[in-house]
């Protein structure tokens, strides 16, 4: 079937294609300049970070063979040929893993309770006083920007070595991170129930308890579970600075080149993180599923 394609007159076509070419040229120029700036930044960064490709290529074999070595026992046999020898310290490691999860749990829960108390003071729609809102916002920003391991370094000196410092570090970081997520949920609630409760003559506390909390509870729980999962990863390295958990064993194994221990502990951590991941995913599914059914 022949189709009629209308062809524009020569003059109009020339004008159109000129505008097109100009637009494309402008876009190309912008992309080139952006790319040039980016590459310049990369080169400067490479000099700043002492990137040395020669060392990298000389030692890259080490990186590959490192993974070969961590899967070998002292006798030179592959680790999976003798699982008992590979996981020789499983009793100690499992109890340390339990401690890691417990650090994360206690830290997350105490951080969540604090964040729960603070976020109503900081949300735009529920804040009782303006200066308090400003102060709480700045405090939470501080808690979330300073990495938890820096808090752990300081707390280890103040509270002594051990899991307590790790718990407190995770709790503080959690106040900042969860506080912000909670606050965003609270700022998006429906304000009509709040007006309804206030119309009965209730005070600020009752407004929060009966109008805001029922709307946000499921969202809060979801974010808290997610944070718990993130904190398990975080708690697994708290031991690097002496703040408890499996990290202590891991850093010793890496630093002292106990190769098969490194792979065993890493494997345990990865499996634990997977399991926590799946478990919290299941709980979250139940929570939001129940929410939808209502």
């Amino acid at each position, binding site marked *: 079937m022949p189709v009629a394609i209308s062809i524009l007159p020569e003059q109009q076509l020339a004008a159109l294609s000129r505008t097109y070419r100009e637009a494309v040229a402008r876009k190309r120029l912008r992309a080139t300049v952006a790319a040039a700036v980016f590459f310049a930044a990369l080169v400067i960064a*490479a000099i700043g970070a*002492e990137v040395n490709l020669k060392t990298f290529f000389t030692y890259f074999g080490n990186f590959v063979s*490192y993974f070969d070595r961590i899967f070998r026992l002292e006798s030179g046999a592959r680790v999976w040929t003798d699982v008992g020898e590979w996981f020789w310290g499983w009793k100690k490691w499992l109890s340390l893993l339990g401690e890691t999860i417990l650090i994360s*749990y206690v830290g997350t829960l105490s951080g969540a309770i604090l964040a729960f108390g603070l976020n109503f003071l900081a949300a735009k729609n529920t804040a009782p006083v303006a200066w308090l809102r400003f102060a709480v916002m700045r405090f939470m920003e501080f808690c979330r920007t300073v*990495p938890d391991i*820096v808090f752990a370094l300081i707390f280890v*000196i103040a*509270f002594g070595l051990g899991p307590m410092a790790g718990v407190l570090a995770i709790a503080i970081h959690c106040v900042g991170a969860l506080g912000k997520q909670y606050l965003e949920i609270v700022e998006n609630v429906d304000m009509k129930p709040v007006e309804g409760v206030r119309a009965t003559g209730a005070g600020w506390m009752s407004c929060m308890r009966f109008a805001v909390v029922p709307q946000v509870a499921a969202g809060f729980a979801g974010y808290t579970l997610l944070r718990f999962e993130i904190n398990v990863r975080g708690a697994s390295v708290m031991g690097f600075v002496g703040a408890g958990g499996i990290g202590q064993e891991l850093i010793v194994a*890496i630093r002292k080149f106990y190769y098969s221990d490194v792979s065993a502990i*890493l494997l345990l951590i990865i499996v634990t993180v997977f399991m926590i991941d799946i478990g919290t995913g299941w709980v979250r599914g139940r929570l939001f599923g129940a929410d939808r059914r209502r």
Partner: protein
Amino acid sequence: MTGLQSHDRDELKARYPHVFDRPLSSRLAVPVVIACAAGLFLFGLVALEFSPARMLAGLSQLGWFILLMIPPDPGSSLPTYLAAMGETLSIALLGTTLAAVFALPVSLLAARNIVPSNIFRFPVRRFLDSVRGVDTLIWALVWINVVGLGPFAGVLAIAVSDFGSFGKLFSEAFETADRNQVEGIRASGGNALHEIRFGLLPQVLPVIAGQVLYFFESNTRSATIIGIVGAGGIGLQLAEQIRVLEWQKVSFLILMILVAVAAIDWISGKLRFAIIGRRAVV
């Protein structure tokens, strides 16, 4: 207003039985969960050696430290700190870029609409998950064993751990891309590579660019801490000053980190708006 009359209540009960007579299991669920959570919390406090005495002693120590931190003062090492900050930013930029460059081809392999075969996709996904399951600090320790102490180990550590996250995020971006444009390319006679280049990439690149910028932000934070295990940057200085109890320098370094992170947040926020517009800010 008076209370409900008793016959009113009976009438209400008859009309809404599901409100008044909830089964025991659903009425007990919330208190039981709360009791379990609280019990585990208390057990945790005991198992992790919490005690009021230690808490008080630690808090009074901490109070002293905070008093000693004021005012923040870099002493004579300001140039060193500025150089370390530059090193940290360099580590974040290079690490993120490297991770993105290497993750892009791998993420194609993990995307369902590009590699339909499950047998091939599954190992790639599990591999990315395992890489992600290991913390950046652990990767830093491994790389220190390979290339020695210094910022280069930090770059590689950030690159590897982000490689896992990027692989997952990019492949999700590819999976949510619109099929129609790819089919359009095929209809006009393009081959598989053309489909990816002209059908998928234009849809996916802005999303990816936004994610990369977002990770650059968060990597600035990670790069401040990998120095703690010896992989360069401002964390090295920070850990050192904490260990020798130079609190004024510590507070100055923390302030520096706060300012730098805020600045990077602001810049990358602007860039993200410029690249993807308001619609898809992560």
